[in-house]
């Protein structure tokens, strides 16, 4: 008797809500994938097919070759990888300084990093446009790379500071004793131990650049330089929307972010805990 009540409780208060939440999460992704796998005629057919009866990859071919997703993908990749490289190097250096040294202005620097978190991103689009127009860098990936790096570095610096503080100081002191200079000690002793932290930082940064829309929209006005979000948005706004190709393009844009995220999400739960509390 009691056991069956316990089971009922578990179903009502655990399995049922969990199933509902997961269905709510998964369904939009499922529906996009199914739309991408249907031919143009099947997408509009009534009654709706919840599982395509004649699945096809023609939308993916179309999106990649004819609509421009190959270009958007390449542009997003260039911006993402370059930003990650800059952010990882610079935030490792500044995180190292914060973690290993006491110096005048350290508190001010930390305060400055904190302040950046409260800067509304939408405030920046007009002045950034003016700055990069004057520099002649509109529609140049460099403008996005610099801006994204500036936006990400404050957070990743704090993140790296935490990761570096976890590496025992004695290890690099021993290396310096053995004749390494400081940069060599960082390169050969600290860096390998930091690798998991660096991967988390890199994934964070990459997903941000991969997904950012408003700044990319503002700083790009040539279709050949669009990143994926700008390209998707452009396609959505067209008069005759090709829904199949749009859905396929979305799935293409989705895959790298989701793979990286699934890989790093454990670090995220741990890292977030530290970041939010600290």
């Amino acid at each position, binding site marked *: 008797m009691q056991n069956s009540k316990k089971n009922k409780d578990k179903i009502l208060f*655990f399995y049922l*809500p*969990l199933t509902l*939440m*997961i269905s709510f*999460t998964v369904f939009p*992704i499922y*529906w*996009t994938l199914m739309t991408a796998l249907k031919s143009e005629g099947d*997408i*509009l057919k009534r009654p*709706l097919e919840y599982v395509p009866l004649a699945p096809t990859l023609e939308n993916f071919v179309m999106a990649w070759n004819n609509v421009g997703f190959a270009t958007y993908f390449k542009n997003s990749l260039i911006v993402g990888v370059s930003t990650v490289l800059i952010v990882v190097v610079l*935030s490792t*250096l*500044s995180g*190292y*300084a*914060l973690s290993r040294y006491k*110096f005048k202005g*350290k508190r001010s620097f930390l305060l*400055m990093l904190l302040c*950046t978190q*409260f800067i*509304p*991103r*939408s*405030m*920046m689009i*007009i*002045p*950034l*446009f*003016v*700055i990069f*127009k004057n520099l002649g860098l509109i529609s140049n990936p460099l403008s996005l790379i610099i*801006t994204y790096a*500036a*936006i990400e*570095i*404050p957070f990743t610096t704090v993140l790296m500071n935490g990761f570096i503080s976890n590496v025992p100081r004695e290890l690099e002191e021993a290396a310096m004793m053995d004749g390494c200079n400081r940069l060599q000690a960082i390169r050969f002793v600290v860096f390998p131990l930091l690798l998991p932290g660096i991967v988390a930082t890199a994934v964070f940064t990459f997903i941000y650049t*991969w*997904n950012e*829309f*408003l700044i990319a929209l503002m700083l790009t006005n040539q279709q050949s330089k669009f990143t994926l*979000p700008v390209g*998707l*948005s452009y396609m*959505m706004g067209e008069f005759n929307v090709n*829904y199949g190709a*749009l*859905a396929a393009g*979305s799935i293409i*844009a*989705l895959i790298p972010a989701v793979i990286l*995220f699934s890989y790093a*999400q454990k670090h995220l*739960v*741990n890292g977030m805990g530290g970041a*939010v*509390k600290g």
Partner: protein
Amino acid sequence: MHVQGDVDLPVKNPSKTKKMKKRKMEKWIPYLFILPSFLIIVSFLFYPIGTVFYYSLQYYDISAPYYNKFAGLDHFKRIFTEDDLFLPSLFNSFKWVVSQVGLQLILGMILALLLNQTFKFRGFVRAVAFIPWAISGVLASVMWSLMYNEHMGVINDLLMRMGIISTPQAWLSDTTTAFIGVVIAEVWRGIPFFAITLLAALQSIPEELYEAARVDGAGRWKSYIHITLPQLKNTIVLTTLLRTIWEFNNVDLLFNLTGGGPAHSTTTLTMYIAEQAVHGSNFGYGSALTVVTFGILFLFAIIYLKASRFEREGD
């Protein structure tokens, strides 16, 4: 190395000067290390923000640069007295932020509590539940626009099958449903942020607290109110504040799903600014709007932190 030939060095111990020299160098190392980050942050975050304040006092139109001149407070006067869109947009921003942060917090909390239980395939279920966190606003817009679509949308199909509606609706071009439509799509994307941060905080609550409560005969609900919530307070205050600022600024879904329409029913203040910046060329006025928006957010953040006594109780 060169010390070898230094006969007339006044110091007895040559290695000491070397050490002192090295220490002097060491003093500069932290500054050297933070310099690149500092420069990039100042040049591309703080400097642009500074120029917004400058432009807000100028007539500054990139399509008609010959009219550019000092404007004084003209833009601000116009915002508060003549602009028919300002107050409705501010009200929409308020609706947007309250519904987003409220719903995301409640649903995120439920999800975090569920995922904190032990069950089979927990790791996998967690990964799946967090996926929307990695999905961009534009992608979410595409996904939900496919579902809301009047002709091929699955939402119309499901509701008609259930007999709730009899004819297909154009959810996003109807002034009564457009706003709530975008809200649902953005909530979908925002739940994992709260679920992730709250789950992290839940995991740091010591198990003994719950055991003690169980000994005292407290049920699940009671121990949630008296143990879990107080322990999560700082996380909730901080995440809701960050999320408020974030959602206030977030226009990705509004821009792509409704474009602020129909009839400006989904135009928030930030959407208004984005429209001015992307489609218009009157940067002076857009900057003034930005400054006002910044002021509102700043005021809110201070009041919020004071009211929630975050600092005093923060560890």
